[in-house]
C-alpha cells in the first residue's frame, strides 16, 4: 500500500485542543493542497472536547483521528509512541508534522526510530519539491548562522517538527465537512515505564514559549534588583519575561526564563531586548520573532543586527518612558 496523506499531530491539555494544533493546520493544509491529498489531524488524549475536534475540521483538516484513554491524558512517550505506531501502520501517511514543543521534540524522535522514518527538527519552512513530491524541510543550524534544506527521498513517512509561533493559526471556516474518527486506545498500547507523579505549574503568568510578547533583560540591567525596571513595560505589553544567559548565570533570573541556545527558543510576535548585547547564542533563540525591538547603550551591539527598531541610550531612562507612553496610549 502506498503512503499517502499529510498528518499533523495536534496537542491537547485537559482535553482542550491547543493553539499549536491550529498552527500546524496552516502548514499541513498548504502541503496537502500542493500534494493534492488529504489533511488529517491526529490527537491523543482523554475525553477530548468534541467542539474542539470539530474546530480542527473547521480550520482545514479533512479528517480527525483520535486515540483516547485515561492513560493518555498527559504526554508519556511510550504509550503515545505505541498509539502513533498503530495509526501509522493502519493508515500509512506520507508526511507527519508536529510542534517543536517539549512534547513534539520528545515524541517525534522516539517515534521516527520505530517508524524507520526520516525526521527533521525545528523547521521554519516546509514545502513540496515539485518534481518528486518530496517534503523540503528548511531549518536553522549552527546557532542560526546557516539554514539547511533537508529531504527524505526514500523513507516514508517523512517527519518534521516546526517551531511554535512560526505560522499563524488557521482560521475557522464554518461549514467545512470532514470525518471525525474517535477511537478508544487499546489497553495493550498503554503501558508506560515512566509515570507522571506530579506537576508544578510555573509561578509566572505565562510560559515563555507560548507568549505573544517577550521582554528580555541582559547584562545591561547591571544587577538583579533592576529587573523591576522592565516590569511595568512587560505588564503594559502583557509580555512574558525572558533573559540572556548572562543574566541567568548571574542569578538575576531563573533558568526557565533563559532565551538562547542553552535555553528556550521563542518566536513571539514582538521581542523586546533590554540591555541584551546579542551573542550568537542569544540570537539563535529569538531571531525568528516577527518584530524585534532592542534598547542598548552600545550602538555597535550585535542585537541591532537582527532588530527592526533600535533605541541607543540609557535603558534606565528609556524603558520607564516607553512604559509610561504605552500606559497613556492604553487610556486614550
Amino acid at each position, binding site marked *: 500500500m502506498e503512503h499517502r496523506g499529510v498528518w499533523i499531530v495536534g496537542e491537547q491539555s485537559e482535553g482542550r485542543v491547543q493553539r499549536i494544533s491550529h498552527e500546524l493546520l496552516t502548514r499541513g493544509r498548504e502541503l496537502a493542497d500542493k500534494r493534492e491529498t488529504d489533511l488529517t489531524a491526529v490527537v491523543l488524549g482523554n475525553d477530548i472536547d468534541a467542539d474542539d475536534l470539530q474546530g480542527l475540521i473547521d480550520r482545514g483538516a479533512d479528517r480527525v483521528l483520535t486515540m483516547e484513554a485515561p492513560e493518555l491524558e498527559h504526554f508519556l512517550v511510550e504509550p503515545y509512541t505505541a498509539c502513533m505506531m498503530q495509526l501509522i501502520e493502519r493508515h500509512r501517511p506520507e508526511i507527519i508534522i508536529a510542534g517543536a514543543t517539549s512534547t513534539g521534540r520528545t515524541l517525534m524522535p522516539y517515534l521516527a*526510530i520505530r517508524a524507520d522514518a526520516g525526521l527533521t527538527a525545528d523547521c521554519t519552512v516546509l514545502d513540496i519539491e515539485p518534481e518528486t513530491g518530496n517534503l523540503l524541510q528548511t531549518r536553522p543550524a549552527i546557532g542560526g548562522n546557516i539554514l539547511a534544506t533537508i529531504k527524505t527521498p526514500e523513507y516514508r513517512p517523512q517527519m518534521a517538527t516546526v517551531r511554535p509561533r512560526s505560522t499563524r493559526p488557521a482560521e475557522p471556516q464554518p461549514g467545512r465537512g470532514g470525518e471525525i474518527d474517535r477511537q478508544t486506545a487499546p489497553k495493550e498500547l498503554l503501558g508506560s515505564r515512566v509515570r507522571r507523579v506530579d506537576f508544578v505549574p510555573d509561578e509566572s503568568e505565562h510560559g515563555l514559549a507560548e507568549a505573544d510578547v517577550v521582554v528580555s533583560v541582559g547584562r545591561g540591567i547591571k544587577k538583579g534588583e533592576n529587573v523591576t525596571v522592565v516590569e511595568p513595560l512587560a505588564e503594559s505589553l502583557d509580555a512574558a519575561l525572558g533573559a540572556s544567559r548572562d543574566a541567568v548565570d548571574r542569578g538575576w533570573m531563573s533558568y526557565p526564563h533563559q532565551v538562547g541556545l542553552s535555553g528556550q527558543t521563542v518566536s513571539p510576535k514582538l521581542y523586546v531586548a533590554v540591555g541584551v548585547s546579542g551573542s550568537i547564542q542569544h540570537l539563535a533563540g529569538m531571531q525568528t520573532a516577527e518584530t524585534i525591538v532592542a534598547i542598548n547603550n552600545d550602538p555597535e551591539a550585535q542585537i541591532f543586527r537582527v532588530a527592526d527598531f533600535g533605541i541607543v541610550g540609557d535603558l534606565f531612562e528609556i524603558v520607564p518612558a516607553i512604559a509610561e507612553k504605552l500606559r497613556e496610549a492604553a487610556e486614550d
Partner: protein
Amino acid sequence: MRFIVPIKQVPETNAVRMDEETGTMVREGVESIINPLDLYAIEIAIRLREQHGGEVISISMGPANAEKAIREAIAMGCDSGVLITDKAFAGSDTWATSYVLAAAIRRIGDPGLIICGERATDGDTGQVGPGIASFLDLPLATYVGKVEHVDNDVCRVRRLIESGYEVLETDMPAVLTVVKEVADPRLPTLRGKQKARKVEVPAWGADDLDTDPNRLGLKGSPTRVVKIFRPQVTRQCRKVTAVDEESIGPAVDELVEFLRQRELI
C-alpha cells in the same frame, strides 16, 4: 551503577565564521569543544556516581580527533571513555547516529542511566538522546532540570515543560536528556588531567559493533541535506539615538508609533 554519557564534539560557536561565497562554515582554525550542554550531562553523572558509587563512561561518535573530547570528559571526572569512529559512519543523520551509539551502549552493557545533553549546539536537533532510548527500548525523560532520586529500580526527575515542571518517575535503566539547570559543570582537576593524559581510550569501528552495514553513515541515513545557505537578512533596523533628555521623548514616540503601525499595541 553504570552511567553512560554520550557526548559530541562541536565547533566553538562564538568562533564560527561563514564563507560568504559558498555559504558554508569555515571550520579551519575553529576550536573544537565538548558540546556545552553535554557538560551538564557529564556533571550530573559524576555527582550521581559520587553519591551512589559505580562508574561514568563517556562515549563519542566522530572523527579520530573527537578523542580529545573524551579525554576532556575524563579530566572532569569520568572514569573512562570510548571513541566510536569509522569512515563508514561519515554523513550520519540523527537516525544513523542514534543507531550506532545504541549499538555501542549495548556492547558496553548493563547501563543504569544514560545521560545526554538535551541537544548539541551545532546540529541543534535534540533527536539523538530520544533516538538512543528508542533503539534500546528504554524509558525516556527529556528536558530534565533536576534528578531528585536514583536507586537500582527507579529514578525520579523534574522535567521542564512550557507551563511548569512535571515530576516523572521512571523504571531503571533509563535515558535522560538534561538541560542546564540540572547541575553546574565543574572544571577539570589536575589529577583528572593527569589521568586523562595516560588513560587508554579504545576506538571502536563498525566491525566492533553489531550493526547492519546498510544502516550506517550517509547510506543508512533517511534524511539528506539538499542545500545549505545563509539566512537572508531581511530586517532593516531603524535605529534612533536617545542619549540626552531631549531625544528620549521623540525616540519613545517613534517606537510607539512603529508598534502601532505593526498592530502590536
